[in-house]
Structures are given as structure tokens and as C-alpha cells.
């Protein structure tokens, strides 16, 4: 589609912030319109990257499970890591990617808790968390 949804959101947000919001008669309405414009800028960023963020995050988490799984003494956790590492998404819809991401995050938290409690090296876990956080960071127009 031309124009793409991210461009529509960005230009509409700019119009709202710069042209329409100042014409709203109440301070409350103006303030809320500016927040809505900020949400439109954020949604514009997310449009292009949303699937990539989730796919990349799921790939990283599964790779971590493959790396650390064999070292885990807890048999239940080791088995769940193997299962989660082997699973795959059957759709690129955001709702489907979110569902598998939530499942992976639950197992991830169990793994991290186990490593903390056994005083194991957590650097590989933190490297994944830092990458996850960096991918999802949003920027607002100056």
C-alpha cells in the first residue's frame, strides 16, 4: 500500500500535535491530544518492526535455551527448555507471535531464577535481556 500505515500514523500525529491540538478550546483536551499524537508516533515505529521484534526475540530465547539447557541439573526445567527451544510459530500474526513469546518468557524467567539461585553465570541471560530491551525501545520526536 502507498502510503504505508506508518507514514499515515506519523503524518497524522504531526498534524494533530502541531495544527489540530492547539485549536482545542480546553487545556485538558489539548494535553490529551498531544498524548494521542505521541501514541501515533510510537505506533508508526511499531508498525514496521513489530513482527521482526517478536521473531528476533523468540529466536534469541530459543538459542539461549539450546545453549544452556544441557547444563541444567533440574530435569523438569531441562526438559521444558528443550521443548521450548524446539517449538516454532505457525503464523506471523502479531497475536500468534505474542502467544509464543509469552510462553518463552515464562520458561525464560524460570531459567533465570534457577541460574540466580545456583550462583551460575548469568551473562548470556542478561545479553538476551539487553537485546530484548534495546529492540523494543521507542523514540519520540524531539
Amino acid at each position: 500500500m502507498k502510503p504505508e500505515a506508518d507514514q499515515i500514523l506519523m503524518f497524522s500525529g504531526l498534524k494533530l500535535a502541531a495544527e489540530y491540538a492547539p485549536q482545542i478550546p480546553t487545556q485538558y483536551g489539548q494535553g490529551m491530544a498531544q498524548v494521542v499524537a505521541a501514541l501515533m508516533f510510537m505506533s508508526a515505529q511499531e508498525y514496521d518492526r513489530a513482527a521482526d521484534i517478536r521473531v528476533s526475540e523468540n529466536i534469541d530465547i530459543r538459542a539461549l535455551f539450546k545453549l544452556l539447557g544441557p547444563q541444567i541439573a533440574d530435569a523438569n526445567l531441562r526438559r521444558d527448555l528443550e521443548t521450548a527451544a524446539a517449538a516454532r510459530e505457525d503464523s506471523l500474526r502479531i497475536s500468534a507471535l505474542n502467544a509464543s513469546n509469552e510462553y518463552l518468557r515464562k520458561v525464560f524467567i524460570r531459567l533465570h531464577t534457577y541460574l540466580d539461585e545456583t550462583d551460575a553465570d548469568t551473562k548470556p541471560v542478561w545479553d538476551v535481556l539487553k537485546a530484548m530491551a534495546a529492540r523494543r525501545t521507542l523514540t519520540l520526536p524531539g
Partner: protein
Amino acid sequence: MSDDLTERLEAYLSNVMGIPDLEVANLSRIPGGASRETYRFRARYNRGGTEIERGLILRRDQTASLIETDRATEFRAYRAFHALGLPVPEPIALEEGSEALDRPFFVMEEIENCQVGSILSSDPYGPLREKIGRQFFANLGRIARADVDEIGLGDLEGERDPTKCWLHEVDRWEKVIDEDEREPQPIARAALRWLRRNRPPPAPKISVVHGDYRTGNFLYDADGNMRAILDWEMAHLGNPLEDLGWAIDPLWSHGDPSRPAGTIPREEALSIWQKESGIRLDTAALAWWEIFASLKGLAIWISAAREYADGRNTDPVNAFSGWYCLTFHNKILADRLGAA
């Protein structure tokens, strides 16, 4: 604004202030936090033959609130710190029933001809930033210095044992995350474990903790005078470093963490706070409270996201907090704890 609300507010204030001819005019909603609806209005009345017109603020509970907060606590905090001489609006009336305006509320003085800094702005204070910053950290120090019993707030919610107040707060915010998270939060969970494993030293004293002392929660005038500290709804007893850690959190630094609150250099800010509070700063303890601040932020943003996503409170501020602020604090915590 609804004439009905105007008339009901007029009737209420006439009764509690004992002024039969009191008139409410120009009632209009203004931005003012996610836990209360905030309205500005004019109150006109005659007292002793003198015509008086006064700007007042109505803060009414939302139908669904971001974080459950006690309006009586907020009202009492306004009263105590106004009396102490801090720039805090004078509280006028507290109504905890729902008969008058459908929901509980309180009324306070409006501080006029002022503005509030927006966290969306990269430079909210312009050439006034250093003047504002010095007052911002001095006033926070004065809050920390206040004796909680002398100002009548010794019974606020919180923990008075200096060795346990950190745990009280960690438990409190973990409970919020447990109740409100819609998706697993690995960084918040890791931060909670870190905070419990790396317990901080005892509090240097027990103070009133404002709970949300930051950009956006104070008013300043055109000359850079800080005129009103607002939003005391999360006030509680605890370690004064909790407020300091929150005030210098990078989320409120407008893109330059070396200048907390977007104002003065960090070392100057901490020096002013120490001087005004009378508390010698333990930098290791402050580092713990800075991690806590970002975790507390995550808990609040997780709640905001829940309110919005469940459709209970679709205020766009909740969507912004639950998305932008959540991703911001996830990155801060991952970078800080991941570097340890």
C-alpha cells in the same frame, strides 16, 4: 463542563465553608495525573462585606484508578507540608463519601500563572533549568528533613523500622506486578530478585516519602520560581533515598541523565539534597534505590498497561505509560543490572 457538577460542587462548598452565597464558575477539566480527575474553577463569595474570587482545584477519584491511592493521605500531606512552608497548595476540603459528587474528592487552592514541565519535552525549562533544579532538589531535601511526628504524619502507611522499609516497598510493588502483569516480565522479575539479594543499608532516618517527586508533578512560574509540589497521592513513610532515587531516574532526565530532572548536574543536585536534608548520602545505598526506582516505575507502568488493555481506564496517558515508559525502564534495568 457539566452544569450539574458545577451546581453540586457549589452546594457542597457553600455548606462546608459556611458561605450560602458561594458561586462556582468556569469549571473545566485539566490534565493532572492518572489516579484523579482534576478540575479548575473559580469560587466567588462575599465575606465581611468583601467580594472574594478565588481559583480552586477539584481532585476527584477516577472510576478506575491507575494505582489505588488514599485521597485522605494526599490531603493530609498537602496540609502538613503547606503548614511547614514548602511550596504546596493550601488544602480546603476533603470529602470521602460519594453522595456529593458521585466519588470521593478534595478541593485545594489553585496556584495560578504557572506551568508544568512535560516529560515529552527535550528541554522543558529552557534558561530556567538551573534555577528550577536547585529549588527542586532543595525542596526534596526539606521533605526528607521534616520530622514525621512533628508534622502529624507519623501514622502514614509505610514501615518505620529503618532496616525493613526497603523490604516493605519491594513487597508492595512486587504485589502490584503479580496482580497486574498481562504478560511475563523477565526484567522486572530479575530486578526483584536482585533487590532482595542485594539488600541496602538501613535508612538514615524515616521520612515522609512523596512517592512521585519528579518533572510533571510541580508548578513553576515565568521567573523560574517553584510554586507548588503536587500529586502527594503515593505519600508514605520510608527511606528518604526512595524519593531521591525516583527524582534522579533517567526517565525524568529529558535525554541527559547527567542532569537529573533535566536541570542541574547530578553532583550538584545530590550536594543540595544533602545540605537541605541534613542526611549524609551513602552512594551505595543510593545506587540500590536507583534500581528500585526503575523497578517501581515498571510496576506502575505494568498497572497502567493493564488498566488500558482491559478497557477499565482508556485514558491515553495509561497507554503511553504502559508502553513508552515500560520499554524505557526495561532498558534502564537491563543495561544497569546486565553490566553488574
